[in-house]
């Protein structure tokens, strides 16, 4: 049964607090950069090259946490059936992928400077991160392959939960491995001096705030697009000369009609009728 569309005024808005978050992200990033280049001394072992660590490690931590968060948000989607949770999960995973690309590139640059190689296949930390990245790289094609929005959201949520559970397990397996070259930053073996530790934590905080700000930014943009699509449907529903823009998309469509997935064979990909319009009263002409 089709669920009634939510009134526009009742929909959650993501734009609130975005400006403050953006300012906080920029200020923290500036502070972190100042600390990295002007305050914290060079590492005795790595020298100036160690400064990559303040960007590479936070990127890796935030991208992995983002993947896990995507899985947690997907659980909420499956529990409630609310497509907004799917959108939140999608944006978290999408953004984590961007951060993961940054992790891989900055890590490779560091490896080239420190080890003399861009990539070391025998290093479990590198290979395991690459596996996680490649796993999540299939998330968007998976979504794109499923045309029915309801089914797309459900399958993507199952994928996000399964892979989200795999991320900490993978991390733990690598931690238990003894055959590694990759330096360990946090944990029992860490003996980071306080200046290094403080700079690292400020960088991590800056990266976290940046992630949240970008997540909110993309959520606001996606929500605005969805509202514009709803508005277009409302304005053009009685006009035959206006063809609503539609097409296959990997991104969630929270404004798409919430009809049950087609069950008859060969009906996959059928275009569903538009959802009932939100109750908007039009003033009658005087």
């Amino acid at each position, binding site marked *: 049964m089709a669920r009634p569309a939510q009134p526009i005024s009742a929909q959650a808005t993501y734009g609130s607090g975005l400006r403050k978050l953006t300012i906080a992200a920029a200020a923290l990033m500036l502070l972190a950069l100042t600390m990295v280049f002007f305050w914290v001394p060079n590492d005795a072992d790595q020298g100036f090259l160690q400064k990559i660590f303040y960007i590479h490690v936070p990127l890796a931590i935030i991208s992995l946490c983002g993947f896990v968060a995507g899985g947690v948000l997907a659980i909420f989607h499956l529990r409630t059936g609310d497509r907004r949770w799917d959108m939140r999960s999608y944006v978290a995973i999408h953004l984590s992928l961007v951060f993961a690309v940054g992790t891989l590139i900055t890590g490779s640059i560091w490896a080239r400077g420190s080890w003399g190689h861009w990539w070391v296949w025998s290093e479990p930390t590198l290979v395991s991160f690459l596996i996680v990245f490649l796993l999540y790289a299939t998330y968007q094609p998976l979504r794109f392959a499923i045309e029915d929005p309801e089914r797309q959201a459900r399958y993507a949520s199952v994928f996000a939960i399964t892979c989200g559970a795999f991320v900490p397990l993978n991390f733990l397996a690598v931690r238990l491995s003894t055959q590694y070259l990759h330096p360990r930053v946090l944990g029992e073996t860490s003996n980071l001096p306080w200046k290094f530790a403080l700079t690292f934590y400020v960088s991590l905080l800056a990266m976290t705030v940046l992630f949240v700000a970008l997540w909110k*930014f993309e959520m606001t943009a996606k929500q605005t697009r969805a509202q514009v699509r709803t508005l277009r449907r409302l304005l053009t529903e009685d006009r035959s000369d206006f063809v609503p823009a539609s097409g296959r998309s990997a991104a969630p469509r929270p404004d798409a009609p919430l009809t049950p997935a087609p069950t008859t064979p060969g009906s996959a990909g059928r275009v569903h009728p538009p959802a009932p319009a939100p109750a908007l009263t039009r003033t009658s002409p005087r």
Partner: protein
Amino acid sequence: MPGLPFHTAGPYVFAAYIVFFTLVVVYVAIMAVRLTRVQREVVALTELARQQQMDETPPTP
């Protein structure tokens, strides 16, 4: 292992930071392009709504 001197390590460090900031800038630029598209659509819809309102208003006798 002795630390790499600044002139050797410097390009690597700056390359890493440039990569990161380029990623962020490209991401924000893509979002800005999409926002422009939405803005254009809002203008078109506003025009359509105005047109519909004019069509609904009966001519004054």
